[in-house]
């Protein structure tokens, strides 16, 4: 039987493309009548350009990337919407063994505690500055990425100005471990398996993780060309249902072995299944024999991981403003607000009777513990979702949040 819908999608070789990969390879897409073609890409720029010109209907994208596209921050303008999130968490900050030794000398412990690690890093940075040494160089995968914003948030909250006291460069994820080993960078923030890759190689140490900087924080999304979505609402709904089932399958511990083997294939990540296991189990080797299990390290499905919260988009927007990527204006705020589309998620999944949140936005950082929330028909648990510095982001108070961060920076 011929599939009802043909969909072309791009992805980057990162573990958090797993939901898209599983939708295709385990057959969830076919079951919804979708013939899903996946193309592996070599850069986020390619993904963005191919969406813009219609080669891809949708793609695995960095959470802030569609917002940046719609704000006109990218060379090719395109109207991109986000009806589905691919997961929460999953990133780490990995540093070279030399830098880790320096941080340890200033009190850092192999416990992933972001406040302690950040304090030690700050002390080391000032010691280096006093000695007249070059600033440390950190890499992230893209300027408009969760990685860039969480690294900066972490550093700033620890009293380090990421724009002045360190250098931040862009390195493609598969090159991170090599760049660190070669001494071209001192540390990086990237998704898995590119942190474990450095630990296994014996050249890096995981200093902290996204899931401790901001618990259950947003990461990759499905970015969809708006013009395509408007022309093919049924295809999009069918795909969202397929992704929902695929995400549930990815979350199930019983499927970890199969998923790790699938992602290890040369056409996806091309790295051994053993390297895929830390992200699935949350059990990380940190380097130097230390290990740690992180709760909610990566969530492809649980805790409403696939719901495109408008508060996530707005938080990314506040960080774009904070770091000078865009001016804060009512027009820009409206663009950011319109980018994530929980309405499309709801209308596609409502017929399945799955748990849907009662609101489209939430106060980020307000839940100190896992909390059942009111939702239509089924139970849904959210949180804990705190920022490590105890701050709260209220999406109704964007102006105040931006002003507070600007003030904090001026005082630093």
């Amino acid at each position, binding site marked *: 039987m011929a599939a009802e819908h043909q969909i072309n999608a791009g992805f980057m070789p990162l573990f958090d493309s797993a939901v898209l990969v599983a939708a295709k390879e385990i057959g969830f897409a076919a079951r919804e009548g979708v013939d899903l073609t996946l193309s592996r890409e070599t850069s986020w720029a390619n993904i963005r350009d191919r969406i813009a010109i219609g080669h891809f209907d949708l793609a695995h994208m960095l959470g802030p990337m569609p917002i940046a596209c719609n704000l006109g921050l990218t060379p090719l303008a395109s109207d991109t919407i986000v009806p589905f999130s691919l997961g929460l968490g999953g990133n780490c900050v990995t540093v070279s063994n030399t830098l880790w030794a320096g941080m340890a000398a200033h009190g850092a412990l192999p416990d992933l505690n972001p406040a302690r690690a950040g304090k030690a890093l700050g002390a080391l940075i000032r010691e280096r500055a006093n000695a007249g040494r070059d600033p440390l160089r950190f890499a992230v995968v893209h300027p408009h990425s969760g990685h860039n914003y969480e690294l900066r948030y972490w550093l700033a909250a620890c009293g380090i100005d990421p724009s002045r006291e360190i250098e931040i*460069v862009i390195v493609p994820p598969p090159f991170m471990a090599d760049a660190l080993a070669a001494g071209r960078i001192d540390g990086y923030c990237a998704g898995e398996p590119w942190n474990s890759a450095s630990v296994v190689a014996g050249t890096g140490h995981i200093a902290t993780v996204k899931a401790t900087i901001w618990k259950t924080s947003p990461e990759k999304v499905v970015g969809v060309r708006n013009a395509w979505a408007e022309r093919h609402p049924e295809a999009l709904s069918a795909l969202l249902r397929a992704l929902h089932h695929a995400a549930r399958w990815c979350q199930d511990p019983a499927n970890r072995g199969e998923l790790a083997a699938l992602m290890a294939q040369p056409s996806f990540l091309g790295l051994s299944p053993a390297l895929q296991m830390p992200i699935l189990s949350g059990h990380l080797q940190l380097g130097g024999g230390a290990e740690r299990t992180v709760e909610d390290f990566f969530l492809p499905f649980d805790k409403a991981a696939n719901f495109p919260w408008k508060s996530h988009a707005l938080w990314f927007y506040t960080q774009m403003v904070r770091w000078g990527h865009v001016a804060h204006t009512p027009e820009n705020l409206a663009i950011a607000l319109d980018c994530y589309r929980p309405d499309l998620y709801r209308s596609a999944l409502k017929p399945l009777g799955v748990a849907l949140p009662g609101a489209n936005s939430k106060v980020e950082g307000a839940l100190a513990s896992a909390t059942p929330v009111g939702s239509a028909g089924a139970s849904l648990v959210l949180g804990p979702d705190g920022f490590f510095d105890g701050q709260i982001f209220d999406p109704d108070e964007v102006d105040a949040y931006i002003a507070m961060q600007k003030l904090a920076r001026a005082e630093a």
Partner: protein
Amino acid sequence: MIRKSLTVLVIDENHIRASIIEAGLREAGHEQVTVVHDVAGIARRIAEIEPDVIVIDLENPNRDMLENMFQLSRVVKRPIAMFVDRSDQASIEAAVEAGVSAYVVDGLRQERVKPILDMAISRFNAFSRMARELEEARSELEDRKVIDRAKGILMRSRGLSEDAAYALLRKTAMNQNRKISEIAQSLVTAAGLLDPGES
């Protein structure tokens, strides 16, 4: 008014392809062409060269890094944007299909850069065609070798003439709806198993 000729930087890890593009640009009258294969230290090179146009291979995973560098505008004093006009979808599509992307210094008029991108696209396509033909020629040669060996086996073991051996291979291939080279390979493999001295 005399138009200053444009300074073009080609970033391509593939040496052969890069030289094909460079030759094309020189033929088209662009004298100031620089080719860079390795993006290490690219910032300094760009500062030295001060290119008007940068042509880059889409398969280069460092595109994100390069774009960010352009946007930071530390080495290139003026901002750089993708050259193709935002409304010119067909042009962008052709560039992406071919595997080439171009960036220009903001403000440079599109009609001046278009011929460069068109040239790069056609050279990229020519290179892909050449690479494909080379691959085909190589596999054809391999096929011919294995068919010759299979013919030899048939001639010796069944006392056939060369023509008859070939005809038998062809007939078997047709009956099984497979390629002659596949039948020949099976025969060579089987012969090797039966008589290790044969292969």
